[in-house]
């Protein structure tokens, strides 16, 4: 390539090897990146002001670290933050605790011999991954609201007389949120492992079988360990994403009854900053979250480097 470039330079009589015109072609896109990803960083200074949208930043009062102090100042505020962090970590750790399920799903589905059945299971179980959380909520609403399918069925069977409030309830919020995440993501999560299984060296199975291994021993001692590298990478990434539960799922399922236990950090930031119209406090929270997330990612990456010799990012 190098040789070719030099000859080309000679042919066309160019003097520079570095192409500025190539940069100019991508520059408009770089402007978009700067505007939407880096310009907001300047907005972090908002956290140091008592920002009033009507006044603009220039005329808003400078308050220093007041918002950060406020987060830990009063007892009620501390309790609220504590609850939000408890929710955030609970959802994240429940996700991590169930992260082996897609592996198990893939190993067991791989044991199914009928192709048509495998394909059908795969299509149906991966479908929920491609609908929005609004639609998931619509499904939850149709099935579990007081006049929904589950309540009417239970009522018809004479098991209940008054409808159960599945959605407007503060009971088991963490677990129901986990259940919906699994419903949406389990089948899709398994796809990666199914592909990995297809790539396992068949001679491993052959030699194990010659040694007298049965089907379950092959699953346990060949397939499972072969999937572990993939699993570890995803596990480390989920540690890096400890604070990033996302907003949509919790926003759509949020209501006056379950608010205390559903409010994860992302939702809390939204509720404080947008619903509560407290831009400066929301910025302070956003900022803390971004900084801690990067620290987590760097840590996870360092672990990966030490353990596997390659980075995950």
């Amino acid at each position, binding site marked *: 390539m190098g040789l070719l470039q030099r000859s080309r330079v000679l042919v066309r009589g160019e003097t520079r090897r570095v192409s500025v015109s190539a940069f100019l072609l991508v520059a408009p896109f770089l402007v978009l990146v700067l*505007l939407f990803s880096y310009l907001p960083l300047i907005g972090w200074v908002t956290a140091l002001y008592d920002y009033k949208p009507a006044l603009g930043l220039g005329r808003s009062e400078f308050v220093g670290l007041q918002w950060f102090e406020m987060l830990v100042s009063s007892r009620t505020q501390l309790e609220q933050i504590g609850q939000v962090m408890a929710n955030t970590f609970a959802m994240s750790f429940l996700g991590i605790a169930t992260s082996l399920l897609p592996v198990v799903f893939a190993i067991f589905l791989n044991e199914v*011999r009928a192709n048509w059945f495998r394909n059908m299971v795969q299509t*149906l179980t991966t479908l929920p991954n491609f*609908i929005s959380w609004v639609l998931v909520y619509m499904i939850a609403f149709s099935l579990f609201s007081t006049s929904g399918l589950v309540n009417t069925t239970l009522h018809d069977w004479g098991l209940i007389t008054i409808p159960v409030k599945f959605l407007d309830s503060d009971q088991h919020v963490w677990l129901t949120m986990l259940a919906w995440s699994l419903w949406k993501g389990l*089948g899709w999560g398994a796809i990666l492992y199914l592909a990995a299984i297809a790539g396992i060296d068949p001679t491993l199975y052959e030699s194990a079988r010659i040694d007298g291994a049965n089907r379950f021993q092959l699953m346990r001692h060949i397939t499972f360990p072969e999937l572990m590298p993939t699993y570890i990478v995803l596990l480390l990434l989920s540690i890096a994403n400890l604070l990033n539960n996302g907003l949509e799922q919790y926003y759509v399922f949020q209501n006056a009854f379950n608010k205390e236990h559903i409010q994860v950090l992302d939702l809390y930031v939204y509720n404080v900053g947008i619903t509560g119209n407290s831009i400066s406090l929301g910025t302070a929270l956003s900022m803390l*979250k971004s900084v801690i997330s990067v620290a987590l990612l760097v840590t996870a990456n360092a672990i990966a480097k030490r353990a596997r010799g390659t980075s995950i990012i």
Partner: protein
Amino acid sequence: MTTRTTPATPAATATPPSTLPAGARTAQDPWSRRRRRGPHLQRTRGDLPFEIWNYVGFTIFALVCGYPFYYLIINSVSANDVSALGDVRLWPVGFHLSNYTQVLGLGGLASATLVSVARTVIGTVTTVLASAFLGFMFTQERMWKRALWYRLVIFTMYFNAGLIPVYVTMKSLGLTNSFWVYILPAIVQPFNIILVKTYVESLPQSLQEAAELDGAGAIRIFFSIIFPNITPILATVAIFTAVAQWNSFQDTLLYVTDQKLYPLQYVLYTYINQASSLAAAAQNAQSNLGALASAATSQTPTSIRLTVAVIVVLPILFVYPIFQRFFVKGIMLGAVKG
């Protein structure tokens, strides 16, 4: 960025394995052929109960995943007075299709459908073109400060300033309550750029070199040499982008209060939560129909919700099974990148 990008791309992707994991059971699959030759070798005593439980378990989970979609559909075509009671469970009762004609006639819904379709089409075209172009340009080693710009773009995959600072920025850029808030921030997608870049790098160098010797510039090379050769990866990018655009809800929630710009997802959300607006909509549909409405066909809040939900999910139900292999390929290429 890691450099673990060895496998996959052209060889694997240019001729996509039919429905990957299942279809990939040719040379590499440990079970298929061997099993048929001598099942007696593997049969052990625990085998049959395991087989049965395996099939039963997967059948149940597949039903749990699939039934809700079926439930929405059969209810949307059933008599509205029956569906409102939650009594349609296994098949349609009092089949009729008038919900669709009536609901699409509701004021907000026609415009919401238009917004959804427009953002999906425009968003997909712009994102695919930008991903293709940037993925190609970032392979051009002569670009001034290429590594810096590339890192600048990729870094945004792992870091963002946060919800509220981005919100304030959008506001100061004048993008709130603008259709372009659905398009512009989504144009540069680092993940897609990595996919395309990896793909371009795996194309034979001679393609580009020949064109360069003939004096073709970057744009010319992109459109006449690169673009036609990277369509397999662009198909994957396109399908993921289209689904993301169609499903998007959060950007409307954050940046848009103008009802004319609500997409279907957002309208559905308001319909689920706001009984009052729904009742008004039902009323509206009623008066349009006049005396023709009967209990079975007149709109109820439930029937409107169900019908909108089906309109929202139907494109996914059609598109997903057909393009399943592109989705599967997408996640596998992503996994290679880590």
